[in-house]
C-alpha cells in the first residue's frame, strides 16, 4: 500500500511546528544553504572546471527535478538557458501566484514552512548569480505575504539574506510582491509584466523568452514555490539520492492536491509516480474513496486546465518490459501512475498536481460551464482567439446549462475551442480550450442529450425547469 | 437558339395599309358602341381607360422609390449613401448630417440624412437602390404616375419621400441592439 513520502512537507503538519526561524533552524533549517555556499569548485573528467555555482546548477540538472508549476519542464535545463553573458543583472522570481483551480499546495508551504521557500530561493539565487529576487504571491493570500515578509526579515537578521551572506561576500535581496487577483499572473511572462507594474499581458515568444529578455528586459528565472523548495532538498541529499525518489524521468516528491467528491480531500506528498490515480482517490491513506453509494464519473488530473479523464477510460502506456524493451501496456484510468509522463501519454497532464474528482451525481455540462466561466473571467483579453473565444465558450455553456441548449451545441463548442488552442500568445488558450475539448469529446452524449432535451422542451412550449 | 422572324414582302393590299386602317376603325367602333351602352370598364390590364381607370399594378411592380419609416415612426435611412453610389442615372443625392448635424430619430442608429433627394426625372426605376440598401429603408413602391409642373417639383426631398413611403414593419435591428445592451445591465459585466 503506497504511503506519503514527506520531504517538503515533512514538518509542516507536525504538532508544535511554527513558521518562525528558530523552529525552522531547530529542524535543520538553513543547513542546506551553508552546505551550498561551501560547495567546492570541481574539475570534470574532461578537464573543464566548474565553479561552486555551476556545481549546484549541475546537481539540480542531474536530480531530474521538473517544474512543479504546471508545464513539468526540467528546472536544471531552464536554468541553463539563462543568458549569463548579457552583462545585465539576472533576476529570479518565485511564482507563488497559486491560482490553478484545484491547487492548494503552495499555500501549505507558505503558511506552514515559509523559511523552507526562502532557503530554497537563496540557494537558487546564489547558484544563478542573482542579486535581486521577488516572491510573487497571489493577492488573495494576505497572511501568506505577511508570513513571508516576516520570514525574510528573520533571515536577514540572521545573516542568511542581505549583504555578505554568511560571510561569503554574496549579496542578495528578496522582496515580496503581491498580485491582485489575476490568474494570468501565473503565466511567467504575464507575471513578469505584472511585476513591472503593468497589466499581466503575457509577452510574445519570440522574442521575449524570460531567460533572455525577462524582468526589465534582463535574464530572468521564474520557478514555482515547490520547485524552489525541492532545490533545498537536492542540495541536502545530493542529486543522486534525490533522483532515487520517484521514478525515472519523474524524480523526487511532489505534493498532490486532491479535491472534489472524495471522503478525505487534502494534500499528499508522494514520490512521483509511486502512487496511481486510483490509489490517490481510494486509498485510505489518501482520498479514502468516494462518498457512500457513489460511483466515479470523471477526474481532472492536473488542475482545471488539464484534460478530463473519464472513469473506465483505458490508455496505452509505453513501459519498459522485463527484458528492457519498450512495450505498450493497456492501463485503466485508476492504474495510471501519477507522474508527468504517464499522464502525458494518457493525453492529459499532471499540471500543478491537482486532482479534482467528480462522482456520478455530477452533471458534466454544469461542471464544464463552471470552468469555462472561470476562464472567461480570467482571460486577460490581449489576443483575439482567447479574448473572444473564452467568453463565447462560457456564454454557450451558460445557455446550454440553463435550458437554452441546442443539439448542435456539442459541435459548436468543439469548434470554438479548436480555434483557440495553439493560436494564442500564451498557454492560457490551451487552458481555456482543453477542458471544453475533453469534456465535450468524452461526454458527448451528455452534451447532446442536454441540448436535445432543451429543444424538445421549447418545441412543447415548456419553460426549462433548470432556468434560474 | 436563333429565332427567325418572318420578313416576307408585303402583299399589294397590305402595302395600301387599308386593311390595317379598317381593323383600327373596327376596334374604335366596338369601343364606341360599348361606351354608348355604358359598359366601358376595362377587363384587362392592357386596355384600361387611363387615367379615369387607374392601372392596377401587379405585386412586385417596381414604381417610384420612396423612403420608409419603421413601425415606431422612425426614419430607417442612416445615410450610408450606398444607393447614391449605386444609382445608375445618378438620380439620388444625399446630404449627410456631418459632425454637427441632427442625430438619428432612433437613439442608437447615430445618424440619418440631413437631406435626401431623388430626381424622379432621372430615376429609371431600376431598383438597385432598394437592392443595395442595408437598412431596408428605400423601396420601389407602386406609384408610376409622377407629374409636376417644373423640374424642381420633380426632385423629391426627404420629407416628401418619407410621406409617400409610409411604414415598413421590418426587423428593427437597432432597437434589438439597444434592447440587448440594456439587458446586459452594466459594463463591464461583473462576474458571478
Amino acid at each position, binding site marked *: 500500500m503506497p504511503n506519503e513520502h514527506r520531504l517538503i512537507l515533512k514538518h509542516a503538519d507536525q504538532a508544535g511546528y511554527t513558521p518562525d526561524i528558530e523552529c525552522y533552524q531547530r529542524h535543520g533549517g538553513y543547513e542546506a544553504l551553508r552546505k551550498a555556499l561551501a560547495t567546492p569548485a570541481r574539475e570534470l573528467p574532461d578537464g573543464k572546471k566548474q565553479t561552486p555555482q555551476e556545481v549546484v546548477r549541475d546537481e539540480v540538472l542531474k536530480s531530474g527535478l521538473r517544474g512543479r508549476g504546471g508545464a513539468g519542464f526540467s528546472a536544471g535545463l531552464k536554468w541553463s538557458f539563462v543568458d549569463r553573458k548579457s552583462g545585465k543583472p539576472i533576476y529570479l522570481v518565485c511564482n507563488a501566484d497559486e491560482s490553478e483551480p484545484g491547487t492548494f499546495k503552495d499555500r501549505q508551504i507558505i503558511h506552514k514552512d515559509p523559511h523552507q521557500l526562502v532557503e530554497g530561493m537563496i540557494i537558487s539565487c546564489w547558484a544563478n548569480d542573482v542579486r535581486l529576487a521577488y516572491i510573487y504571491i497571489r493577492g488573495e493570500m494576505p497572511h501568506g505575504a505577511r508570513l513571508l515578509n516576516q520570514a525574510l526579515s528573520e533571515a536577514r537578521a540572521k545573516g542568511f539574506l542581505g549583504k555578505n551572506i554568511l560571510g561569503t561576500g554574496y549579496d542578495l535581496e528578496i522582496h515580496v510582491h503581491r498580485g491582485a487577483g*489575476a490568474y494570468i499572473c501565473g503565466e511567467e511572462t504575464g507575471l513578469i509584466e505584472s511585476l513591472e507594474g503593468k*497589466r499581466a499581458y503575457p509577452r*510574445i515568444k*519570440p*522574442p521575449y523568452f524570460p531567460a533572455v529578455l525577462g524582468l526589465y528586459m534582463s535574464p530572468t528565472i521564474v520557478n514555482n514555490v515547490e520547485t524552489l523548495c525541492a532545490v533545498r532538498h537536492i542540495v541536502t541529499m545530493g542529486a543522486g539520492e534525490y533522483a532515487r525518489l520517484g521514478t525515472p524521468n519523474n524524480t523526487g516528491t511532489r505534493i498532490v492536491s486532491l479535491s472534489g467528491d472524495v471522503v478525505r480531500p487534502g494534500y499528499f506528498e508522494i514520490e512521483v509516480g509511486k502512487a496511481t490515480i486510483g490509489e490517490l482517490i481510494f486509498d485510505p491513506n489518501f482520498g479514502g474513496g468516494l462518498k457512500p453509494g457513489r460511483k466515479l464519473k470523471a477526474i481532472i488530473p492536473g488542475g482545471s486546465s488539464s484534460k478530463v479523464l473519464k472513469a473506465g477510460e483505458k490508455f496505452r502506456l509505453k513501459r519498459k518490459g522485463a527484458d528492457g524493451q519498450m512495450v505498450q501496456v493497456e492501463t485503466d484510468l485508476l492504474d495510471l501512475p501519477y507522474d508527468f509522463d504517464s499522464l502525458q501519454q494518457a*493525453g492529459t497532464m499532471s499540471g500543478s498536481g491537482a486532482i479534482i474528482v467528480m462522482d456520478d451525481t455530477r452533471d458534466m455540462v454544469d461542471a464544464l460551464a463552471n470552468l469555462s466561466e472561470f476562464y*472567461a*473571467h*480570467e*482571460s*486577460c*483579453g*490581449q*489576443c*483575439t*482567439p482567447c*479574448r*473572444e*473565444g*473564452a*467568453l*463565447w465558450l462560457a*456564454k*454557450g455553456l451558460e*445557455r446550454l446549462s440553463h435550458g437554452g441548449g*441546442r443539439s448542435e451545441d456539442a459541435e*459548436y463548442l468543439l469548434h470554438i475551442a479548436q*480555434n483557440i*488552442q*495553439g*493560436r*494564442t*500568445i500564451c498557454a492560457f488558450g*490551451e487552458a481555456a480550450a482543453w477542458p471544453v475539448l475533453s469534456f465535450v469529446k468524452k461526454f458527448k452524449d451528455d452534451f447532446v442529450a442536454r441540448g436535445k432535451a432543451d429543444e424538445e422542451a421549447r418545441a412543447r412550449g415548456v419553460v426549462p425547469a433548470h432556468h434560474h | 437558339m436563333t429565332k427567325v422572324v418572318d420578313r416576307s414582302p408585303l402583299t399589294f393590299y397590305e402595302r395600301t395599309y387599308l386593311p390595317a386602317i379598317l381593323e383600327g376603325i373596327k376596334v374604335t367602333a366596338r369601343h364606341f358602341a360599348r361606351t354608348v351602352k355604358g359598359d366601358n370598364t376595362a377587363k384587362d390590364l392592357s386596355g384600361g381607360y387611363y387615367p379615369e381607370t387607374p392601372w392596377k399594378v401587379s405585386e412586385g411592380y417596381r414604381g417610384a422609390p420612396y423612403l420608409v419609416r419603421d413601425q415606431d415612426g422612425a426614419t430607417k435611412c*442612416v*445615410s*450610408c*449613401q*450606398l444607393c*447614391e*453610389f449605386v444609382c445608375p442615372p445618378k438620380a439620388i443625392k444625399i446630404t*449627410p*448630417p*456631418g*459632425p454637427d*448635424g441632427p442625430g438619428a430619430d432612433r437613439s*442608437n*442608429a*447615430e*445618424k440619418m440624412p440631413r437631406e435626401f433627394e431623388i430626381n424622379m426625372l432621372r430615376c429609371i426605376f431600376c431598383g438597385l437602390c432598394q437592392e443595395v440598401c*442595408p*437598412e431596408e429603408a428605400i423601396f420601389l413602391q407602386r406609384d408610376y404616375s409622377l407629374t409636376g409642373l417644373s423640374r424642381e417639383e420633380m426632385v423629391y426631398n426627404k420629407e416628401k419621400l418619407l410621406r409617400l413611403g409610409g411604414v415598413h414593419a421590418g426587423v428593427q435591428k437597432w432597437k434589438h*441592439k439597444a434592447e*440587448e*445592451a440594456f*439587458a*446586459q445591465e452594466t*459594463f*463591464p*459585466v461583473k462576474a458571478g
Partner: protein
Amino acid sequence: MSNAVTNAPAAPSPVEKIRVKVDGREIEVPKTMPDWQGKPQPTTMLQACKLAGVEVPHYCYHPKLPVAGNCRMCLVEFSTPMMDPATRKPVVNEDGSPKMARSVLPYEPQTPRGAIACATPISPGMEIHASSPATKQMREAVLESLLINHPLDCPICDQAGECKLQEYSVQHGQAASRFVEAKVHKPKAVDLGPRIMLDDERCVLCTRCIRFTRDIAGDDALGIVNRGSYNTIASAPGRSFDNNYTLNTVDLCPVGALTSKDFRFKMRVWFLKETPSVCTSCSTGCNITVGSREGVVHRYEPRENDAVNGPWMCDSGRLNYRWIQRPDRLDTVKLRGAPSDWAAATSAVVSLLRGAPKGSVAFVASARQTTEELWLVSRIARQLGALTDSVPREGEADRLLVSADKNPNSQGSRLTGVSFTEMGVTIPEIARGIEAGRIRTLVVLGEDVTKGGIDAALLARLENLVVADILPSPTSEAAHVLLPGCAHAEKRGTFVNGKGRVQRFQKAIEPRGEARAEWEWLQEVAVALGAVEPSRSIEGLFNRMAADVPALAGLEWARLGDQGVSVPV
C-alpha cells in the same frame, strides 16, 4: 523622439541573405531588416512574405510601430528543415532535398500550428505556407472571433470602405456567423478628446493607437481598461486625448473605432477623389492626400514619405483646409474696383510694368506660393530691377513634425532669389521706397502686407497695387488690380520644404469662380516682358526653372515622383 521621420537611408551595407520559400516559391531575403525604428533586426516571416509579393493579413502589426502580436490575424503555417537530433544535421529525402517538418501542435501532432508572421524570425530553409488550408482556416477563425462582438454597423460607420475588417471579411471570412449568444455591448460614441470619437464596440483591441501615442507622439494617454472580452480602449478618467497628433490614431485604427470628429458623418470615403498633395501649414511639408468630392475638400490624410513625415502628420495641419471653402473667397477679377476679366487685367499689368522706370516696382511674393510662381516673380523682377521679398511666418515648433517656420515654401523663395536667407529683410527697404516715392508699383502675391511691414497708409501712396490672393484682406481691398488666386489644392506646382525636399502637388479641385493659378498669368506677364520663354504646362515651367536655378540643376518634374527629391539648401 522616435525615428519615424528619417532621411533616406545611406547606402546599405551588404546584408547576409538567406533563402526561404513562400508558398512554394523560393526567394532570397536579407537576414536582417529594419524594424519600426529602422534598427536592423532578424527578418520576420511577414517581411519575407512581403518581399515575395504575398500579402499576409494583419491588424496589430504596423511597420512603424513596435510589434504587439496580439491580433493573431497573421498566423501562418510553416515548415522548417528537419534536423537529426543526434547529429544536428539536416535530414534529407531520397532525392537529396531536405526533409521538412511542418509546424504542429506539440500535444496534437496531426494539427497544424501557426506562428505570427509579424514577430517570428525566418530561418534558413524555412517554408512559409501563407495560403495553405490550415493558414486560411486560422485566418477565418480569427476573423470570426473578431466579428462576434462587433456591432456590424457598417452603414453608419465612417470607416466603411477603408476598413480592414470589411476587406478581410471579403477576402478571408465566412458568409455566416455561428455566434448565437448575446453580444458584449461596450460604450459607444465616447468623447476621447477634442478631435477623436471612440466606438468601443467596433474596436479590435489591436493597440495601434496606444503604441502610437506612447511610442511615437510621446504622450502616454491611452490604455486598455477592464479585462478579457470587456477590454476597452480608454484615456484616464477626466483626461482628454488632445495632443497635436491624435488624428493619426484614426488613420492607424484598422476599423471604425477611432473616428475623426471633423470628418464624422461627413462623406462616405468611396466618393472621395484622392489627390497627392503637400501640407502647407509649415515648412515640414508633410505629404498628404486630399480627399475631395465634387469640388469640395473633405479631409487631408498623411501620405507616407519616409524622407519627410513617415506615415504621420499633425492635427493642426490636417484640419487646416476649411479656408479653401470659405464663402468670402476672392473669385472675381477686378480693375480699379470694377469687375473685369483676365485678358484686360493681364494686359493692364503688362503695360504698367513695361512702362515702369527701373527701380520703381517691388514685389512681395508669399512663401506660400509655388516655387514656379516665385521663380517667375524673380525673373520678372530681375527684368525690372525690382526689389523682392517674402514675409516670414514664425511659430512654435515641436519635436516631431511641426517646424517653427510656418511658410511651406520658404526654401523655394530663397532658392529662386525672391528672398534672402533672412526672409523679410528687404521689406523695410520696400516700405522706405514707397514712403520716398521711389517705388510706385507694388505687386503682392498671397500676403496681407499691412500685417507684414507695409501699412495701409503706405499702400495708399502707391500708383499701382497689383494683388493676387485667395482671401480678402486690407491689402486686397486696396488693390488697383485684383487677381483671384488658387489654393494649392486647386493648382499644380512644387514646394521646397525646410530641409530642401522639392515636392510636387497635384490639383484636387477646380478653382473658385474666376480664380486662376497664379503661375498662368505670371507667365503671360513674364513672356510679354521677355523675361522667360513660354511653357505650355507646369511640367515645362518646372523644367525651365530647374535649368535656371542652380540649386535645382538637373531636376525634372517627371523625376520628382510623389515622394520628391532632396536638394542642398
